[in-house]
């Protein structure tokens, strides 16, 4: 029962934290890795070719950040989830499990807001 409660805490915390951290990673451009698919190269951290070379490099070797944003959110959520697993059972979920639905929906709305520039082009 104790381990089940602990995993429940982990699962709910992971879900909410993942959604929030994903939006932060997207907004702040915090990618744990940058992928260059045409070169077959994966670099640790966020790299913009225009910062270190000619902006035209972006056309020759496009960078992908989605994997990095997902990895950032997953790593952060994993740490937070594991931390909540360590809490004694008497620490109940203070926010209520409803946040596991509300948090991701708000995160999706935030993603829509951050994607709006595409629709103004």
């Amino acid at each position, binding site marked *: 029962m104790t381990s089940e409660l602990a*995993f*429940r805490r*982990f*699962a*709910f915390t*992971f*879900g909410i*934290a*993942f*959604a929030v951290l*994903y939006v932060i990673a*997207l907004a702040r451009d915090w990618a744990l890795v940058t*992928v260059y*698919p*045409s070169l077959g190269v994966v670099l640790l951290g966020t790299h913009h070719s225009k910062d270190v070379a000619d902006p035209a490099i972006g*056309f020759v070797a*496009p960078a*992908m950040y*989605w*994997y990095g*944003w*997902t990895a950032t*959110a*997953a790593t952060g*959520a994993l740490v937070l*989830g594991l931390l909540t697993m360590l809490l004694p059972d008497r620490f109940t979920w203070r926010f209520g*499990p*409803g946040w*596991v*639905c509300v948090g*991701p*929906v708000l*995160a*999706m709305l935030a*993603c*829509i807001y951050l*994607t*709006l*520039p*595409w*629709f103004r*082009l």
Partner: protein
Amino acid sequence: MTIALLMVHGLVAVALLGAITHQTLAAWAPVRGRPGSFLGRFRTVPSASFANAIVVLYLISALLGAILYLYFRIDVRPTLEREGHWQSLGLFDLKEHFISIGLGLLPAYWVLWRRPCTDESHRMRALLTAVMAFIVWWSFLIGHYLNNLKGFGL
């Protein structure tokens, strides 16, 4: 190889779409349907038994999508950029964001469907399943839209 992967991705997505749609409708439909009715028979299928399959199908579909995304970025997206399909690319970006958020929700979704159902957990699982269903439907439709966008040179 890419086309084979894309077809497998599509087939897995169809299976996932069917399972999550059935589960969502069963979770939201009234419990007291007429016994012989379509809704009544629909409701008698134990929705909880879909949960493991949905988690596995979602993971496989996301993994295949993540592999295909590499080819999309090199071979497809530059063409769409050149031709100014900015709104379509925005819709695709949303698909990627929603899929990631759905990945994060999988443990909570699994826990909710695994536990015995109380009133509160019934509401929670119905809501969370609806969110997951929205993500799966959005991804399926946008994926198909992007896939077909240049099919007839429109």
